[in-house]
Every structure is written in C-alpha cells, then in structure tokens.
C-alpha cells in the first residue's frame, strides 16, 4: 500500500528540481526541459489525487490529458523560438537575450 502522501512528496521534489532548473540554468533548451519536469510533476499530482480521492469523476485525469496536450504545443512553439533566436543571435543563453527586441 503506497499512501497518497508518497506521491505528493515525490511530485513536490520533481517540481522543486524544475523550479531550480528554470531559474538557474542559462541554456534556453534546458529551461524548457525544466518546465517539462514541472508540468510532469503537476500532472502526477493531479492523477494521484484523482485515483485516490475521486475515482468516479476523474477530473484530475482529464486535467492531465489537457496538460499533456498543451505541453506538446508549448514545446513546439518554444523550440521554434529558440531556433529563431539561435539563427539571429548565435546564442541560446537566456541572459544574453534580455533586451526584448531584435
């Protein structure tokens, strides 16, 4: 028997690692990977709550489906932006792209 708290603590650890990665790393693609870690942690939280507390209405599972959909769209767009940034500036470091104009 795995209690619900185990899943919550695991996803909290994943989320904090993602927060650290987003704030600390300089490579834009790595920032994106850390965002994916955070999204994964959140959907694991949703699914754990749904499976333990709400197995008849499963709103959490539906949320996770939409999180996966939106994450796929977000990855495509963000990588297009990163590739564009690299073409124009020859860098993918987020702290060198801080002036909000080309």
């Amino acid at each position, binding site marked *: *028997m*795995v*209690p*619900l*708290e*185990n*899943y*919550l*603590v*695991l996803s*909290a*650890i*994943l*989320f*904090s*690692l*993602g*927060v*650290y*990665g987003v704030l*600390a*790393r*300089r490579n834009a*693609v*790595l920032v*994106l*990977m*850390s965002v*994916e*870690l955070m999204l*994964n942690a959140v959907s*694991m939280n949703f*699914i754990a709550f*749904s*499976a*333990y*507390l709400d197995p008849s*209405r*499963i*709103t959490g*599972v*539906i949320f*996770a*489906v*939409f999180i*996966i*959909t939106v*994450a*796929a*769209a977000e*990855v*495509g*767009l963000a*990588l*297009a*932006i990163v*590739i*564009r940034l690299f073409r124009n500036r020859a860098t*993918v470091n987020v*702290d060198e792209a801080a002036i909000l104009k080309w």
Partner: protein
Amino acid sequence: MATEVLWWIFAVAIVGVSAGVVFSRSVIHSAIFLILSMVGVGAMYLLLMVEFLAIVQLLIYGGAVTVLILLALMLTRMGAGGAAQKVDGPQMPFALLAGGGILAILVGVAVSTSWPGDVDDQPTGISIELISEKLFQDFGAPFVIASALLLVALVGAIILARQEDAD
C-alpha cells in the same frame, strides 16, 4: 508489498534522473536523463492504475517531445570551445533558495494535511472507457478547443522557424 518495492525503486530512480536533468554539465546528457524521467513518471501512472495515461505519457513525452528537444539541441550546438562556459547564471544561489523553499512548503503541506476518505487504500483503477466518457461528454468543448490550439501552435511554429528569403 511488491507494489511498494516497485514504487520505491521508481521513486528513487525518478528523483535521481531528474536531478541529472538540472545538474548535468552537458545538455545532451540532460536530454537523455529527461527521457528516463518521463518513462519513470509513466511507470508511476501504471502503479496508479491509469494505464491509458501511462501509454500516452510514453508516446508523447518519451517519444515526440524528447525527439523535438534533441533536434533543437542538435540545431543549436555552440562551438566546441564552449566547454569552459558556465552552465549556471549568477543567480544560481537564489534559484537554490527558491527551489528549496518551495520544496519545504509543498512537503510540509502534503505531510501535515489529513486527506479525507479512504486515502490508505489502493487506488482504484481508472479505465479507458471512463476517461473517454468524461472527455467526450462533460469536457467536449475544451477537447475541441485543445485541437484548435494544437493546430494554431503547429502553424505558429512553422512561421517562426522558417527561413525568410527576402521580405
């Protein structure tokens, strides 16, 4: 009992490879750690007995998203002289502080709250029939909007990344 052992194996593995994603010096290693982390989270969905989402997780995150990320890494390789570059910005201590603070708050809340209902029971399995029923009946409108969102994101990504010849 077997479930518990499997859970701890996967939990330790997920935390290890996710730490590898954010702390690794090489971005390629980070991407490969990310694949392992996604697969581990998919295994967690199997242990929660939500088989459909486990398969979706493997297909979309383990397959599509990581391939996209690896391609982007390949297209944005900096020169080999970049080995001496710092991977973390000067804000790294604050990032440690923020991550540690959020971790402390979340773990404190999760442990100290008494969750209602039959929390210590096994999770009841969620079948694909139930998911499809809910998704297409109660959440039909968001489903259609999500498909429009995917189309818009696809077109936008093409427009952003395409070579402009002369305009």
